[in-house]
């Protein structure tokens, strides 16, 4: 029997190997609709790779992934996702990158409109209205016709968030969204993310912002060397970590 508590997103035993190096080792995660999940851990633990497996930007070596109604088994003997499936999955799952990755030859508004028009088939005016709405929400309405090169890093990241939101995704993935920014500017981005969380967006965040993970997150996963070593409520994981690796990691980042 299906219950209403069935998680919106399930990752089962996601394994990723680059050559002979196992970057992810059977990572599993269930995420309910509206949950905000933080993934923390030392550099090189595979956090970003895991996030990139969720929208199949990186194809796992094996595992099962389910997002909403779409489920795919990956590994020897399973067929690849079709282009159509990929497109459906990806417009359902937004992604924000560490390095913003705006399209520099398009204006801010065009950045936000392109996928609305090409992927969702929205009309020109409809897409533009949606873009302006979102720009207002992230506080950049006056930048609609500027090129990304004329925007600061913090502004670019807010545009990138608006660009993802324009497709009305059900899940947003954030891959170290503040790591390339000054702390003060990073705080602006975190404020936008906090608002999104308050509005009930389902979010997976790879981050080094411990305070944010603690305050906004519903759950924290600690990843070390391609495995989840610990997970739970942020308060509990961060104040009373069980795993020695978590303790070591937290004391290293908190001690700064």
């Amino acid at each position, binding site marked *: 029997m299906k219950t209403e508590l069935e998680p919106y997103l399930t990752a089962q035993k996601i394994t990723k190997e680059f050559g002979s190096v196992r970057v992810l080792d059977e990572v599993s995660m269930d995420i309910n609709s509206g949950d905000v999940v933080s993934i923390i851990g030392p550099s090189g633990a595979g956090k970003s790779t895991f996030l990139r497996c969720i929208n199949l930007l990186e194809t796992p070596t094996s595992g099962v992934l389910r997002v909403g109604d779409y489920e795919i088994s990956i590994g020897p003997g399973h067929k690849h996702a079709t282009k159509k499936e990929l497109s459906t999955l990806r*417009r359902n799952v937004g992604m924000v990158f560490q390095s913003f990755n*705006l399209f*520099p030859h398009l204006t801010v508004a065009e950045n936000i409109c392109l996928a609305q028009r090409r992927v969702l088939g929205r009309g020109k005016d409809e897409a533009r209205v949606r873009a302006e709405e979102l720009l207002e929400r992230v506080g950049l309405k006056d930048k609609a016709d500027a*090129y990304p*090169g004329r925007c600061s890093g913090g502004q670019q990241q807010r545009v990138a968030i608006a660009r993802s939101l324009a497709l009305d995704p059900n899940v947003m993935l954030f891959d170290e969204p503040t790591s390339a920014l000054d702390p003060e500017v990073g705080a602006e981005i975190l404020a936008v993310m906090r608002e999104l969380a308050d509005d009930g967006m389902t979010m997976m965040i790879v981050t080094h912002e411990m305070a944010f993970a603690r305050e906004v997150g519903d759950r924290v996963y600690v990843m070390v060397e391609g495995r989840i070593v610990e997970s739970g409520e942020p308060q509990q994981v961060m104040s009373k970590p069980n795993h020695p690796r978590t303790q070591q990691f937290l004391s290293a980042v908190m001690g700064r």
Partner: protein
Amino acid sequence: MFLFILQGLIWTVVITVGGFAFGAVVGVAVAGARTSKSVLVRIVGRVWVDVIRSVPPLVWLFVVFFGLAELGFRMTAFQAALVTFSLIASAYLGEIYRGGLASLGRGQIEAAQSLGLSGADVLTRIISPQVLRTVSPSMVTYGIGLMKDSALASTIGVVEMTFRANQVTQSTGQGLTAFAIVGAIYLGLSIPLGLWARHVDQRIREKYVVA
């Protein structure tokens, strides 16, 4: 005399524009091959580029015109010139494209994919417009070079400007005037093109790059 030589301009232009156009199209495939995931395809692309660029254009012209004729592929001088310059341009323009591709961040393509854009959309709306803009000055520079190289076609009998200047010299002995005219026409074509390339380059820098 001026008008007689100027009549050759049409062939200079046809060979240059034709070679450039074919080269520009085939060059996409060359750049694609050079950046392919498959090692074998990359090697084919590499060999194509290296072999073409390592041999002087004049030698290629003779290989295509005289060499292929010996093997039974008879072409007119004009056809041979067009084929030769197309092949050469494909190698050079392919390398120019590849340079432009390398300057395009991988992150943008991933962002486009993460938005669900199709491969065709990524190519036509994200990659091509940016690569074309960054490489257009180099392409124009190459085009100017190609135009000058097209004079080589006179050696196999294409009646373009240089060929006609040579005819004038043979019959009247006024080589200085004849070739000064040819030089002036080349100059008159190259300089505006060069200025235009610089102008375009400047505009791109102002528009997209933070000051």
